[in-house]
Each structure stands twice: as C-alpha cells, then as structure tokens.
C-alpha cells in the first residue's frame, strides 16, 4: 500500500462534483470511486463526505433523490445541477492554476535574490 496523503478540506467538494459529472451516484459509490481512482492515496474519512453532500445540496449544486441501488436497496442518489456543472468548471480551472503555481515554485532553479 502506497503512503497516503491527508485529504485536503475544500477539495472534497471539487472531487464530489467531478464524480457526479459521470452521472447520479449515491454516497457510498462516490466514496468508493474517489478511493479507486486515487488508488487509495487520498485517505478520505468516508463520513466526512456526507456533510459536504448535504451542504452542496443546500447551495443548489446538486440534487438529491431517493432511488433504488444496484442491490435493490433504498438509497439516496445525488446528481449535478446546472449550477453544479458551472461550479465544477470554475473550480477545476482554479485548481489547476493553484497546482501550477505551486509546481512552478517547487521546480524553480533560480535562488531568491537577497535585498
């Protein structure tokens, strides 16, 4: 098992939005998809997913609907709203700019000038 990285709060919403962009999912499958995709590098405490989901529902980014799971159980399915889709685009762009900026600093070869 590779070493795990502590999950960064705030990024969780972006990950949920991205996950839901593939289609409606219930909480468990969102958690599993994130873990599978990151090969468990991101150590996500699964419970923390739910308050994020409910808050995002309040913000109108996602819709919730009770439906039936693959094993025929009653489960709550979340899906992206139009506002959520816009949010995903914006957050993704911000994330890349942030990551890029951090990367530039980390890969810099010129030492800071002393003033």
């Amino acid at each position: 098992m590779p070493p795990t990285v502590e999950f960064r709060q705030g990024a969780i919403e972006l990950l949920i939005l991205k996950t839901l962009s593939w289609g409606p999912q219930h909480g468990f499958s969102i958690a599993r998809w994130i873990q599978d995709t990151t090969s468990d590098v991101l150590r996500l405490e699964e419970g923390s997913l739910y308050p994020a989901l409910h808050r995002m529902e309040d913000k109108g980014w996602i819709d919730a609907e009770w439906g039936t799971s693959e094993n025929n159980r009653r489960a709550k399915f979340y899906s992206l709203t139009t506002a959520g889709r816009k949010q995903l685009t914006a957050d993704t762009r911000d994330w890349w700019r942030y990551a890029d900026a951090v990367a530039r600093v980390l890969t810099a070869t010129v030492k800071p000038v002393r003033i």
Partner: protein
Amino acid sequence: MSREPLWRRYRDLLRRDPIGDVDDEVRFHLEMREREARRAGKTADEARADARQRFGDVSGIVSELRSIDGRRERRRARGEWWFDVTQDVRVAWRALGRAPGFAVTAIATIAIAIAANTTVFSFVDSLLFERLPYGDAGSLAIVSGGVNGTLGEALALRERVRSFADLASYRPRSITLNDQGDPAQLDGESVTANLFPLLGVAPMIGAPFAVDADDPGKGRVIMLGYGLWRRRYGGDRGIVGRKLIVDGSPYFVSGVMPPTFQFPTARADFWVPMTIDRGSAVALWTTSGGSFVARLRRGASLASAQRELLAVAVGMRRLNPVWDPGANYGKDARLIPFRQHLVGKVRDAALLLWACAAVVLLLACVNLANLLLARASAREGELAVRAALGGGRGRLVRQLLTESLVIAALGGIASLALTAAGTRWIAASAPAEFPRLGATGLRTSLYLYSSLLTVAAALAFGLLPAWRATAPRGTARALRLGRPGGGGAAHQRVSATLIIGEIAIAVLLTISGGLLSRSFLALRELSPGFRTERIVVARINPPKASYADAARTLALYQQVLDRLRALPGVVNAAATNQLPIAGPVFGMAIRIQGQAEDVRHNLQWVAHSQAITPEYLDTFGVPVVSGRGFTTADRADGQLVALISQSVAKRYWPAGDAIGKRIGYPYDSPWLTIVGVVPDLRLDSLRDTSAMAVYVPLAQRLTADPNPVLSIAIRARGDIGAIERSIRPVVESVDTQVAVTEVRTMEDVVASSMAKSRFTTILVSAFALVAVLLGAIGIYGVMSYLVSQRTHELGVRAALGATPWDIASLVLRRSALLGVAGGAIGIAGALAATRALHAMLFAVSTTDPLTFAIVPLGFLAVALLATVPPARRATRSDPVGALRRD
C-alpha cells in the same frame, strides 16, 4: 443499526422525515461497506468494525447531517407558508374583483371607520399621552382652589408642605415690547425666579434667572420664548444680554428657551421675574402670585402630598396678617397633576369623541360581518367544493380571514388619506382651548394605531362569518343542490342579532349627537343680556413707563374714544377693564355698609366686577333698571359710586331700596354709593348664570390701578369693517407707542366662546350621521339577503294568491321588528350613557324627551326606507320560476 423496515420505503407518500432519511442514508453506506468486507473474507464483527472505522465518527456526523437537513426543512416550511399566504391573498383579490359592489362598500366602510378613529386618536394622543416638555412631568402638580393665590401663601406652602421639593408661582402678564421703534403687545408670564429649575428645563442659550431675580429692584431681565426669538429677532444668538424696552423700562435678555418648551401654554412668548417683597408681610399677603405649580419630592405620592397640602392650607388661615379669610379657607385646596390641569377642560370632549369613533368602528365591523355572512351563504357552493377537495376547515377559515384582512388593509390604506385630511381639519378648526395641538398630522404613532385597528377590525368582522361559513353541516346538501342553499334559520338569527345591535348603537350615538346639537342650539339662541351685533372690540395696552399716572391714562382713553366717536358711522364707544364673554370676568369680595362691614370676618363675594366708562352701558345696549348710569361727572375726585346687578340688589336689599346704600372694596377704603341697578348679564360666557355683578366708573378705578390693559368697544351703524380698520390709526394719532391688539367683532368673541361646543357638536353629529348611514346600509344588506334567501318561498306565496302588498309587508314587518328591538335597546343604552354627557349639556336634560322620542322614530323611518328596495324586489318574485324549480 438494524435493517430498514420495509414500510419506510413508502413513507415519503405520507410525509417527509428528514431525521429518518439521515439514518437511512448512513445505514446504507455502512451496510455496503460491511458487505464488501465480508466478501473479502472478514468475519461479521470485523466487517462491522472495519466499516465504522473507515466512516469515522458515526454519531457526530449523523447529528451534523440532521442539523443541516433540519435547517433546510424549516426554510422550506417558511417558504411554503409564504406561498400559501400569497396564494390566499391572490384568491381573495380575485374574489373581491368578482364582487366589485361588495368590495367598494366594504372598503369604504372600513376606511371611514378607521380614519375616524385615527383622526380622533391623533389629537387624543397629543393631548393625553405625548411627553410634556418638562423634566419628569409626572411629579408636577398645580395647587387649585382653597387658597387665594397670594405670594404669601405661595411662600408658606413652599416652606411648609414637605412633600413639595419646590413650588413656583406664575401669572399672565401682557407687555408692550418696544425695541426697534415698532411696539408689539405680547402675552407672557410673570414668574418666580425658581420656575425654570423647578420645571427641569434650561434655556437653549443664555442663563436661567438668578436665584434672587424676584427680589425687589432686581428683576429687570426677560426670558424669550423660541417662537418670539425667531419671529422678532430672526434667531440672532447675540440677543443674550441685549437691552429691550418692556413697558417703557429697560430689560436685559437673560436667554432663549428651547423650541419644545411651552409654559403654561403655547401662548406664552416670554417670562419675566415677578417682584417678591419678602420684607413686607402685608405686601406678600395682598399681592397675587397667580397659579402655583409644585414639584413633588422624590418618593412623595400625589395622595400623600394632597393630604399634607390640605392640612397646611387649612392651618394657613392664621398666617394671614391682613384679614381673616374665613372658616372655609383652605378646605378646597387640591393638587392636580399638571397634565390633567392642561387638558382638564377638553379631556371629556376628547374622550367622548374617542368613544364615538370607537362606536363607529364597531358599527362598521358589525356591518361588514353581516355583509360577509350574506356573501358566505351566496358562496356556499364554492366553499363546499373547496371543503370536499380536501381543504381542512382551518385552511378555509384562513382563506376567508385573508379576504377580510385584504379588505381591512385596503380600507386602512385608504383611511390614511382621510386621516391626513381629518387631522388638518381638526388642527384648523379646533378651538383655542384645545392645548398642545402642535403635533398633528401623520406620524409613527398614527401608523401603528391604524395598523392595529386594521388587524383588529379584520378579525372582528371576519372571524364569525368565516367560522360559520365553513361549518361542516350543509356541505353535502350544498353540493347536491349545486346552488346557494337556504342559509337557514341559524344564519338569520345571527344576522338579526347583529343588526339589532347595530341599530341600538346607532340610536345611542344619534341620541348623544341630538342632545349635543339641541344644547348647542339652545346656547346659540341665548342672549348674554347685552347686544353683540355691530360692535367692534380691541385691546389697548399703554406702556407703563409713560402711563403710570391715572390722569394721563384717563386722558389717553378719553382722547381715543372721542376720536373714535367722531368717525362716521360710529354710534358710541366705551372702555372697560374686563371684556365680557372673551374670558372670565373676575369678581371680588365686598363690604356692605350696615350688613357686612368687617374686613376680617364677613366679606361678601360678588362673581364679577367691571370698571367701565360712562358710555359702556349705551354701547352694549344695557338699560338702567333703576337709578342712573355713570356720567362724566363721576370723576376720581367726585363722590365714589357703583352700579349693581339686579341679583345683588335683590339679595342684599330685598325691599328694593338699594339706591343710595353703600358698599366698599375688601379693605379699609372710602365707601362707594350705589347709584343704579342694571340687569343681570352673562359675563364669563353664555353659560354663565352667576348674575352677581358690581360696576364702578373707570375714572375712579384708575386711581388704584393706573396702568390697566383695557378693552375698547365701538358700536357702529354702518360698515363695521371700516371701523375695525380705523382703530389702529386713531390710536396711533393719539400716541404711536400704544399697541393695539385683538381687533375683532363682538360676534366673533361670542362665536369663539362657543367654539368648543360647536367643535364637539359637529364631530359627534358627524359620527351620528355616519352611524345612521352604516345602520341603513346594514339593514339594507340584511333585508336584501333575506329576500334573496326567500325568493322561492315568496314565489310560492305569490303563486298561492298573495298580493304584492302582502309580500312587501312581510318584508317590511320584519324590518320594523328589527328596528323596534334595536331602538329599544339603544334608548336603554342611551339613558345610561348620556349621563356622562351631563357636563357638556346646557339647557337640555340628559333625558330630553324630544330627542329620545324623535331619534328612535326617525331611525325606524330610516330602517323602513332602507327596506323599500328589497321589499320591491320581493314583490317581483316570480311564481312560475319558483314552482318550476320544485
């Protein structure tokens, strides 16, 4: 966590359950995880522990989710509630739109009623509730009655009543102010130096009077009122310390009071210290201090201060160094809260109007309740459908109440325009006796009051009809019939009860209005005993400095009167120290030779005493009953003479031999010989019946008071307008320093003395008129409804051979019955209620038979008149149609 029970899947059909949903969601997650772990070969326990460990703090997260979802649920419920409200309002709006006649009647009714209340409230509010412009006005009180009002008494009370923190005295003072070659006569107050600290008000600029400002020789200072300062000095802040010429003497401006300050009324433009000669007991006990205002000590109650005042006042009889004021002295001393003193005269009138307005609102509510009841039965079908479709009774009541609220709210908004007009009218036409009418017009307290009334009215007229209309019985029948069902006997009973109540109230109000009107008319018919037509009066105030000498003052008046008499169209002109009807004509105590000579023990009180010039009686058309009037020969150095009224003559000389007898002032002084008897006149006001009066020649009176403010009166033959205009130039031609004020006709004086009566009478009568109108609308509404309900029955009767008159009389009889019942109750109520009117009535008994007979009869006529249209409709009942429907 156990497995989810099957039934919960369908729970959403019944109702939302956010808490259960949260449990289900978390449980699902944990179970899925467990299943995965089991599949990977773990034991059940291990799988469970594994799932929980990966999830984290289960109960913490569950409670967090519950709070998020609970908040959302509450937001949603609020949103739904608002949606329902807007929906109800929309439905109500449409329903009103479908019945424009009903809507307009209802809205106008409620608008008039609310406006009447708010308008009356606007001045009741400023009269009774507004803050007085003094520090802690609640502990200010006036000493009334019992004492004579001398400075000696003021000082004694101040010293001896321990419940008083302080006591000040004040009396009206008129001055001629001359500082810019432009003499102005001003009304203000002469006050003790401690007045401002006692009232707890500091000057806006400048300083209050020095503590010793009322010592003799000190008081050459004047405090200006804000209004005078703005008017005359343009708000110049450099005024403090400036020298003004007051009655010919130099006074220095001490300061300017703040704009809100008024004392005792808004009429006072200035305050000057009075002179208190503390060294001379005789001077103190013979100089008038005017009225006494006291500040109660902290913690002293009005009742305890009152008790103490009474004890002290009675004991002060022994303090009087000049004369014995008698055994009754001090016994009537009362402490009246300052606010009550201010509004005392008009409080009754204000409360009466308030009560009338409340009654009008009640009437309007009864009317609307009746209209709504009738309307509800017309809508029985619609309501039954709504009830059948699952609208609960609460929901339907709410819908109907919303309709009432919409009507009331529209009425409330419309009432604001009426209120604005009403308050303007009141401010313009309220008599001068109504104090503190500065703050009228729309203001926050009025908005609050009218909103409160709007909601209260909506509930008052909406609740009963809404409750009855949604009564479950009758629903099935209404649905089956598919048309307005017979509202039934129960409904008619409710309507009848309401209408009887309404008639009773209207009769009560109209009787009150009738009594006041009769009283006012009686008052107007009344003659004061002297003529008031074609007489112009004016006030003249010669400056003290140049007219301190009796001969000079007399010469001034003689010149002015001579020049006025020389004007074309003038019949005669006279002067007097107290103009009748314009205000109280003060009396005095007298000695009577041979009957009551002892100054210390048995002075006789005469209600009025007037100093007049010889032409006075002729000018006012007063005949001399016996003896002679005054002549120019009654000079200061001649024999001292007096005239008495018939009542005085009858009382002291019942044998009719008053002429030649002698009376005197209440101190050691030469006797005055009675030379004539004149009729009893009404001097204070038209209501004055005191009748006891003594008259002395002005020329002889001036020696005691050489500089009085006098009124002159001119009787004209022709155009009195020309006379009014010429008074000022004539006075100026004699002396430009003499100010002339209050030029008006005697008829104006009489009219303004009746202003309060007229004002109350007009308002109460207006309310009575509105009440009659509302009563008529109410009867019309109920009878129309009755006829529409009984169309079928009336048709059958017509088919069975009833003549149109039979049918009409059926309706009319019912209306008459309601009228008689309501009238009887109204009369009974009026007999009880009009006792409160007693103080306002004049020459009319509170049980005046004429009013009590005419009003109910008139009302019966109105009731029958209002029934004519529905009765005519009833006679047109279609027998064929009625039979076909069966």
